[in-house]
């Protein structure tokens, strides 16, 4: 029993990775640690990493689910390159994650799960706790299962149910180690299990017991404090990218004053957007679970034709299926937003792993010359603003817009400064068209948008469809000159949007000779690596694309300022192809396709080698 505690070591930031079986509740544990840290005032960034299987065989490496949380007293932009501590609930979790742990790092393991049967399932030939293979790590062995059972005994829960509280025990241990209060999680348990008081009590006891155990048993030589971050003043909450897009779409619907219609077919990792929106019927939101991906966009096109704010959402393979219908939306020039939460491909690929390999599919993946707008938010918070922006562009220019997020953004969290709804920009939509000589393809001279006349409006009856149409009247037309003109108009309309979007900004050192380009969800790692290199005395600039089609109007000028252009992306060179082909620039690429986000260190090494 320790009488006098050593003072807590103050850290700027720390990274924990929770890992266990898919059924061990690691996502929940990580989310609770994140929320508590956020409420304490840390900046946070998370990376959930889980298998596609709902419950792979217990104890096996494919069944391991992980959740990494990076929390800090300074501004952070990534979930952390390497964890400072790994919480491994079983041998499989240790095996799957050890490769990412630096020597000397802390590993907390559940002693009770390291028996022959368990480490055998994880394909260990001998007990890693005793065979010396972990000598280079600071191992903390805790009999989590036994201690949890004892802690919750008073609730009378059967053994199996009692064991399921061990993640809360582990969380309690981590709360002690990093000096976090228990209230956020205690309150959450109270709400979550309000109808199951026995389970609620057991989990609360386990959490408390974990905290007390770590306090009294002196299992750690040090314990830490990560003070509050200096975030901009305001009210915050933590938010995943998938939650953020859902709110951005609803915000657009409220601002425009049109009901949101979401057509979708369940697909990982986009299903959460459907779940979020399905809860919002009281906002007039209509979610439609379609029979397939094609139907999901079909109903959305029908809704757009009917004057609603139409949205469809999917992930990579679903975008393939929607291609023909996206072409119809291009041809009929209807406002439609298509969300693609990208995942690792090709084909079914790795559904729960992140990648950025659908960019060219988004820009070009349709028959014919079929231009549309492609946007990609850079952070979970930006998922909100770009969802909103997608609808602004769609309704102003009467065009489909593809919004590319990814599994990393969709499932990752960061603090989000809650906006005041009154500060949201207004978006004007008008169906007020002159009946006399109405023409469905007579364009606004400035935006080139055609009128959005909707069924039910008297005097504006007209026909549209996928066949080429005559300029202005919209009647079927196969004249060679007309097809040329209509193709040019469709392309010109999209290219013209470059005038209506922000310029490409340079971050880091604008006087550098070298610029590194990226797009979408890799921003955090790229920004951090450029910042650190400049802090270390190198001269490096970065530029990050959120608008992929059209590119910002100043893109050519930005590229011209630098002697060397690097491109980093989670694919085998898609932004790279666009930059090379549109601006005729030689580039030096850094591509990664491992189902994981960039690490800051690997980007720094790459950039440094090019200086």
């Amino acid at each position: 029993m320790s009488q006098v505690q050593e003072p807590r070591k103050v850290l700027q930031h720390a990274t924990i990775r929770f890992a266990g079986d898919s059924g061990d509740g690691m996502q929940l544990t990580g989310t609770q640690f994140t929320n508590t840290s956020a409420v304490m005032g840390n900046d946070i960034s998370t990376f959930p990493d889980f298998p596609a299987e709902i419950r792979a065989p217990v104890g096996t490496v494919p069944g391991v689910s992980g959740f990494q949380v990076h929390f800090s007293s300074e501004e952070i932009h990534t979930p952390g390159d390497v964890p400072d501590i790994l919480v491994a609930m079983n041998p499989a979790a240790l095996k799957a994650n050890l490769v990412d742990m630096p020597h000397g790092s802390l590993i907390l393991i559940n002693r009770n799960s390291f028996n022959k049967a368990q480490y055998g399932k994880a394909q260990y030939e001998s007990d890693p706790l005793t065979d010396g293979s972990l000598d280079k790590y600071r191992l903390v062995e805790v009999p989590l299962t036994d201690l949890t059972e004892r802690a919750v005994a008073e609730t009378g829960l059967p053994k199996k149910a009692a064991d399921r509280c061990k993640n809360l025990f582990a969380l309690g241990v981590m709360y002690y180690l990093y000096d976090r209060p228990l209230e956020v999680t205690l309150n959450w348990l109270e709400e979550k299990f309000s109808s199951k008081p026995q389970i609620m009590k057991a989990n609360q006891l386990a959490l408390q017991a974990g905290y007390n155990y770590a306090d009294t048993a002196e299992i750690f030589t040090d314990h830490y404090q990560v003070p509050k971050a200096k975030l901009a003043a305001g009210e915050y909450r933590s938010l995943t990218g998938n939650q953020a897009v859902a709110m951005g779409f609803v915000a657009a619907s409220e601002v425009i004053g049109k009901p949101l219609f979401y057509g979708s077919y369940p697909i990982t990792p986009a299903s959460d957007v459907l779940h979020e929106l399905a809860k919002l019927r009281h906002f007039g939101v209509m979610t439609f679970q379609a029979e397939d991906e094609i139907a999901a966009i079909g109903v959305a096109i029908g809704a757009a034709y009917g004057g609603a704010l139409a949205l469809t959402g999917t992930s990579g393979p679903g975008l393939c299926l929607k291609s023909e219908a996206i072409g119809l939306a291009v041809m009929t020039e209807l406002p439609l937003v298509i969300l693609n939460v990208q995942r690792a491909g090709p084909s079914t690929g790795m559904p729960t792993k992140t990648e950025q390999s659908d960019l060219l599919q988004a820009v070009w993946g349709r028959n014919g010359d079929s231009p549309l707008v492609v946007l990609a938010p850079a952070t979970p918070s930006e998922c909100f603003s770009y969802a909103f922006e997608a609808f602004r562009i769609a309704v102003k220019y009467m065009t489909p817009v593809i919004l590319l997020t990814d599994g990393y953004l969709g499932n990752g969290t960061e603090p989000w400064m809650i906006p005041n709804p009154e500060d949201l920009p207004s978006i004007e939509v008008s169906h007020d068209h002159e009946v006399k000589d109405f023409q469905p393809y007579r364009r606004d001279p400035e935006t080139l948008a055609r009128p959005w006349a909707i069924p039910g409006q008297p005097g504006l009856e007209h026909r549209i469809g996928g066949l080429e149409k005559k300029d202005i009247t919209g009647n079927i037309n196969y004249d060679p000159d007309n097809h040329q003109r209509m193709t040019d108009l469709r392309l010109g309309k999209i290219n013209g949007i470059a005038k209506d979007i922000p310029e490409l900004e340079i971050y880091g050192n604008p006087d550098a000779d070298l610029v590194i380009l990226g797009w979408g969800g890799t921003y955090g790692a790229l920004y951090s690596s450029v910042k650190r290199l400049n802090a270390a005395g190198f001269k490096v600039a970065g530029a990050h694309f959120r608008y992929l089609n059209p590119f910002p109007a100043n893109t050519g000028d930005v590229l011209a300022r630098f002697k060397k252009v690097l491109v980093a992306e989670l694919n085998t060179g898609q932004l790279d192809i666009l930059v090379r082909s549109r601006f005729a620039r030689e580039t030096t690429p850094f591509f990664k396709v491992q189902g994981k986000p960039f690490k800051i260190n690997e980007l720094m090494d790459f950039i440094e080698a090019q200086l």
Partner: protein
Amino acid sequence: MSNAATLTKKDFQSDQTVRWCPGCGDYAILSAIQSTMPKLGIAKENIVFISGIGCSSRFPYYMETYGFHTIHGRAPTIATGLKTVNPDLSVWMITGDGDGLSIGGNHLLHILRRNPNINVLLFNNQIYGLTKGQYSPTSEIGKKTKSSPMGSLESPINPIRFALAAEASFVARTYDTNVKHMGEVFQAAAAHQGTSFVEIYQNCVIFNPDPFDSFYDRKVRSDEMIHLDEGEPLVFGKDVKKGLFLDGMVPVVKTLEEAGDEQPIVHQPEQKARYYANMLAEMEHPRYPIPVGVFRKVVRPSYENLLKGQVEDAIAKKGRGKLKDLFGQGDTWKV
């Protein structure tokens, strides 16, 4: 605004030249629809025709209403989306045997299951016309076409049985050589609340001429077809009156004279169980007369009304959503 009360057939004819082959059954169907529209008492701007791809799917261009010529097989999805966000519209979906039962079979199944208040007209000519004469999912086995020179191998789908299996709430059949009958069926379809499925036998003069002549030609029609009239006995025959009777679970045709005191089946399309409608749908020529008219008509809530109900319930329970509440949900903290 168009005054629904004074509309005539002419008001529904668009300025576009109709480009079907001379003699195509589609002309008669178009004419029957244009004649039906003024009888519905619906303003022109509230009527929408939505089609897929194929000869029949050119239909919307010829109607002076709102219209959307979509992509192959997907018309049910676009029609459903439109009707969901705009329940007051009268939505008509035009499809064919290839569009509706081949490439769009999945969507046709699901529109019928969901039951939005949409009228689905399936033009069945048992051939692919627009692609110039390949066999279709309703072509008979052994059909010799350019894509099946030795005869097609697949069993045909019976559209009525398909619709019944998909839980369709209104199922009917009519044919292009009887404008009056088409008009009656279209009006019944329009009056039904829910998805109305109508199969229309339609002649393709070029690639599948006269496949239905053996029963629907004017000369033989009275003896080879049976009209399904609600509450009426199932009888037919020009000179010799015949009726449809039940022998156990099997329908049999007898002359009324043979039947004596035995009563023919009385048509009851509102039966909830589908076996009666299925029995009629099983009747194939020449063993049986071909039934035309409304096979089944049952009341079932429409998709758009159910969804609207959920929105209204949610608002009644939680109050109209406010962005401020949505943004500030869950654990928040101030800096």
